[in-house]
């Protein structure tokens, strides 16, 4: 038995924006009035179009969130501050490495920049990302955003991409200033080594930004997120390598252990990635040991990409259960 139709239900177009985007022209759905081929086409094409529209809608929402996050970060002067930080510290390294002349000079300067970036970039990324979710919740924006027809995972991914654009831009511009000086000092031949460093710095920043986003999704208080971010920095930048060095010195560890040390720390992966391309300029110590671990550029790159994707994916999963 069919009940009366609610006038409100009849009155308006109830389709979603995605459905409206994907809906074919109603006069064109049955072009030949019943041909078998047309029936197949009619049954499959709308599904494909709907899927394509859903993807377009998802991309639109992610980009909208990303652009907003980027705009906010730029206006809050995060982009300017990070760029200035990288310019100043990069210039300091160049100044103090001014005596690094000769054919290996550029490599030594890039190695020095790598050591600096290994401390600075993760810290900047964590500072930029620790409040990505919990901070937005504090100001009431998260509840507003989650009330819109957007998946929470889309908000997380958009937030990551927006802040990543800020971090990557600041890294390229800030350290790019050093790159210009290096090329001016050592010639265009030094550019390839510097480019490897720059890409590595962006990659390690992206990884730590992803970790910061995950922390921000898991914790309930902004201060807890900040504390956790600092602990993450201390672990990966200060303790991890020392611990690994101690273990290597104390025990006869197989190569697989060294590989695990490198891949389990984006900072180590970054160092190995950049310094392995510099050869003799890489220097000594645990870093030299890691460089000799024989890891391929591809495997290290893959590890850094995984360090970016996995935390964001986990954050997107966790945020669905977050109670507002």
């Amino acid at each position, binding site marked *: 038995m069919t009940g009366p139709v609610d006038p409100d239900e009849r009155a308006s177009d109830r389709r979603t924006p995605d459905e409206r985007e994907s809906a074919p022209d109603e006069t064109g759905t049955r072009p030949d009035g019943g041909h078998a081929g047309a029936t197949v086409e009619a049954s499959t094409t709308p599904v494909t179009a709907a899927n394509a529209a859903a993807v377009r809608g998802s991309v639109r929402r992610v980009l909208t969130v990303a652009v907003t996050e980027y705009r906010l970060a730029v206006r809050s002067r995060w982009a300017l501050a990070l760029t200035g930080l990288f310019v100043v510290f990069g210039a300091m390294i160049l100044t103090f490495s001014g005596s690094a002349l000769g054919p290996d000079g550029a490599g030594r300067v890039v190695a020095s920049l790598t050591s600096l970036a290994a401390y600075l970039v993760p810290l900047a990324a964590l500072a930029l990302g620790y409040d990505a979710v919990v901070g937005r919740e504090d100001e009431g924006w998260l509840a*507003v955003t989650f009330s819109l027809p957007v998946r929470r995972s889309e908000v997380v991914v958009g937030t990551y991409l927006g802040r990543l654009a800020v971090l990557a831009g600041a890294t390229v511009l800030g350290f790019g200033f050093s790159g210009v000086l290096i090329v001016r000092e050592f010639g265009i031949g030094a550019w390839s080594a510097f480019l490897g460093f720059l890409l590595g710095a962006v990659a390690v920043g992206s990884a730590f930004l992803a970790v910061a986003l995950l922390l921000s999704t898991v914790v309930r208080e902004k201060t807890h997120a900040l504390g956790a971010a600092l602990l993450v920095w201390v672990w990966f930048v200060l303790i991890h390598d020392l611990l690994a060095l101690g273990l290597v010195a104390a025990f006869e560890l197989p190569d697989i252990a060294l590989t695990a040390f490198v891949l389990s720390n984006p900072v180590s992966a970054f160092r190995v990635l950049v310094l392995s391309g510099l050869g003799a300029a890489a220097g000594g110590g645990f870093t030299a040991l890691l460089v000799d671990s024989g890891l391929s550029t591809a495997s290290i790159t893959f590890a850094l990409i995984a360090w970016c994707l996995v935390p964001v994916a986990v954050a997107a999963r966790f945020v669905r259960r977050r*109670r507002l």
Partner: protein
Amino acid sequence: MRIDATDVHKTYGDVTALDGLSLSIPSGSTFGVLGTNGAGKSTLFRLLVGHDRPDAGTVAVGGTDVTDDGRRIRELVGYLPEHVGFPDGLTGREVLGFHSRVRGLPRDGRVADAIDRVGLAPEEADRRVSGYSNGMCRRLGLASVLLPDPDVLVLDEPTAGLDPRGVDEFHAIIEEVTSSSDATVVFCSHVLPEVERLCDRAAVLHEGRVHAAGPIDALAADAADDDTGAANRADDRHRGGLRAAFRAAVTDASADEPSEVAP
């Protein structure tokens, strides 16, 4: 668009927020949800927009279960949370532009219309939100939920923290919305005269259950009939029937079965 909640249970740890709540909100009505703190109003609203899932029971908007397609529900529902906030770095117009783009709305001047509708001056809309008063933030929040002309408006204590003039202006906006559209408007409030002024129907929640629901007039009459004359309630019948209904429901909640008032 009709809203139905059937035997909804929701607990947070040891706290029971909703305990078998059942409620029907007719399409096109302006519905007030009353209740003391912790009665379950905000939990009900969070379920309505898919921020939470019921432990048991169903909540449906226009026949669609909110747990089946939360995104679809949020296309139909405009929700103004109790603690609405915006990033300080955006202007009011940019906030509305964000809402418009996320919703995939056409760029047809509806942002300017929404700004005008809630009484924000254009120059105010172009200012950063960091300089907004509480009342302006509320207006901006309302503009953002009105932007898509939603079928359902859910407003969680929309006048909380507003000064009397702000409350009056907010009421005027809601009255304009209800008179000019078929939208179902649901809002909760602690202010009984506000519900009496704006709503044609209401429900009184207490300890996660509905203890009275129906048209405002019927609720008031029912409460007056049931009120056996406790001295402290004597003048309530003169000052406002809904106040009597509210107090009767809350006071007698532990002893009574939920009551349904015939429309």
